[in-house]
């Protein structure tokens, strides 16, 4: 059993981390890169599979050489055995389509062919959710999205999943697919470890990975477009049919209410407050009935 998790480094959009220029455009150089937060669902799903079924687990990403920290974080989160980085100037400015072709080629090149590939639930920067399914389309594998529970039958070579229909928590269906298959975990996915043996395995993996993550570069394989035998016309900017014409910042919502600060010791000011509140005091019972 071999699983691969696809992950991506994205700008850290948290308050105080992200930097914009005067035109409201993202300053990539001044904004730290972190693992796409939504990839955590994929990582958790993959980890549960590894704990329950054993086998090996790899993490793959496409990005600049500086992705080391993102991969290291992924390794620590999922207790991965090894890391793959698809990195090359020719790959820069890829859209989801070019990225999908590159990732699919990387997956095919792996010596240990994956049984399951886990992709994140859209990225925090592009928000498309396309890359995983497109990579799967390139490989012509089945894909199960919005997965909230997962079980693998290794003997039968099948995977059975519970998924949200139309992403709606109210409606859940159970589906089965032959492996190899793509899995996209929903944020609702909660890994469960209800067996003592699973918890002990987790503990073993944690100890083992701690050591490995410290020297994660020793477990990193980097491939460029030549290694992947990819034609530069079909990857990177040249291979990207998507054209981003412009990016508009979302204007701040205007404040609709006015606020006045009144000192509680200011008798006159407080008098105005009570006066202003008076009409609402009469209508209290009506308001409560709403």
């Amino acid at each position, binding site marked *: 059993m071999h699983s691969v998790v696809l992950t991506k480094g994205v700008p850290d959009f948290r308050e105080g981390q992200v930097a914009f220029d005067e035109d409201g455009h993202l300053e990539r150089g001044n904004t730290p890169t972190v693992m796409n937060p939504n990839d955590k669902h994929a990582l958790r799903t993959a980890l549960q599979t590894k704990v329950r079924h054993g086998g090996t687990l790899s993490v793959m990403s496409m990005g600049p050489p500086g992705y080391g920290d993102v991969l290291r974080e992924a390794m620590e989160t999922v207790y991965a055995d090894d890391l793959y980085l698809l990195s090359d100037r020719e790959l820069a400015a890829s859209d989801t389509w070019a990225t999908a072709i590159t990732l699919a080629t990387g997956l095919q090149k792996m010596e240990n062919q994956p049984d399951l590939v886990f992709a994140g639930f859209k990225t925090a920067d592009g928000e498309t959710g396309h890359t995983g399914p497109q990579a799967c389309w390139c490989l012509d594998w089945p894909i199960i999205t919005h997965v909230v529970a997962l079980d693998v039958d290794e003997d039968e070579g099948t995977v059975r999943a519970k998924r949200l229909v139309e992403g709606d928590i109210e409606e859940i269906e159970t589906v089965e697919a032959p492996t190899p298959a793509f899995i996209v975990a929903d944020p609702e996915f909660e890994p469960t*470890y*209800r*067996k*003592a043996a699973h*918890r*002990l395995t987790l*503990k*073993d993996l944690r100890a083992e990975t701690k050591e490995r993550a410290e020297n994660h570069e020793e477990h990193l394989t980097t491939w460029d477009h030549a290694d992947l035998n990819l034609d530069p016309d079909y990857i990177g900017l040249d291979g990207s049919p998507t054209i981003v014409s412009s990016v508009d910042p979302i204007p701040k919502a205007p404040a609709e209410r006015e606020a006045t600060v009144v000192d509680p010791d200011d008798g006159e000011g407080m008098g105005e407050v009570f006066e202003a509140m008076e009409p609402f005091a009469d209508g209290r019972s009506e308001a409560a009935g709403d």
Partner: protein
Amino acid sequence: MTGGLIYAEESAPYTIDGIFPGFREHATERPVTDYYIHNIAGEQVRTFDITEGHERDTEWADAVLRRKMDSWMAEQVHEITREAGGGLLTEVKVNGLLREDGEIIGVTCEELDPIKADFVVAADGVNSELAREAGLMDWEEPEEWFQGVKAVVDMPGDAINERFGITDEEGEAHLFSGDLYDGVRGGGFLYTNQDSLCIGNVFHLDSIVEEEAEVQDLLDALLTHPVLAQWLGEEYDEREYSAKLVPDSKKAANPSPHQGRLALVGDAGGQMQAQGPIIKGMNHAVTAGALAAEAFVEARSRGEPDSAGERYERRLHDEGVMDKLRPTRYEVASALSENDTATRLAERALDSSVGRLGVRMADRAGLLETAYSSPYLATMMPDTKTPYVTLPTIIGEAVTACPVSAEDFGGGCYRDETVQSNGDEKRVVSLDTQPCVECGTCAIVADTQWEHPSGGKGVEFREG
């Protein structure tokens, strides 16, 4: 948490360093090389050296902080058991016994599927829910319990050496008794760690209830007493405050601590010996645990795995453990025979007659009703995840005996409050389990349905 000294007795079949080599080096603080008891009467203090009594049958005795000790032990245990295919799991709450046709066949857990086992050793401490579910222990009589509270006080190692006149390899134990506790029966202790002191009190629980004593005030009475100023100076930093129940094994130890495949060891079975003012618990728990293991190995090798409990009980008696825990007569006099005053003192602490628990508040039913109907309480009512105490049925006792609650004190579990509404004044007791130190006192003195929180959710002592 613990007081805490751990002993290795010469007469015991097992000692902790015998089972875990390197224990003293990695898991303990300082040895107790000098032992004193101070009898306090007003401003007068009489001090007696009881080192000789302490050394009787003692191979060694070290001060410990449980966080450090347990962390080291957990690693050792996990490593050793992992080799045999097992392991140590934390953050799991074992919440009951797994039964089949009425027989115990394992345990149920909140976070895990039920676990079947040939032998279940409940070493889950003084508040063992397994022991209570099996009917082997109860939380009924305050007379059977002590309550210990402790402050870990910061003090650099050099300062300890200088103020106590000892070296790095030496340590001291001090006990305090007398009139600094306003008639509450019990005493105080001070033990030296590597770079801190453990200072605390152990009182008879029924006495705390009877005297309506605020246990924090009693700890303050000790900490601020002039006798401690010689070591603490004018200012000191408290690192941690903690509390636990201490079973009085003379009354509480179950002489037959097993049922079916379940066996109790340590505090879970009430195996805490108050030998006069000296309290020994962990050493007996170590021995009991090893004897339980021995019993199971023998039972299984004879093809009678279900006889493990019986064999364990026989060993506890044959090896003299039960006689130490439940002596036919209290042997304090022999332990401290060198000094008559000390003997009388210890006897007084042990043998004073004990009054029945009185109901303090005549209008408690009305008070409870008010408490239950308070909107504040409605939001604080326990669910299964975090809070885990129901409102006490006898509120007055819980408020005073609870080590984190007090009347007119804002920080505790139970707060006795006066609420004004529409010109009316009502007294209510509010419940906030956030500061709970999980000692279990309220379960005994006020009949709350106390239970442990979910795995990983409870109080976490940094010192222990």
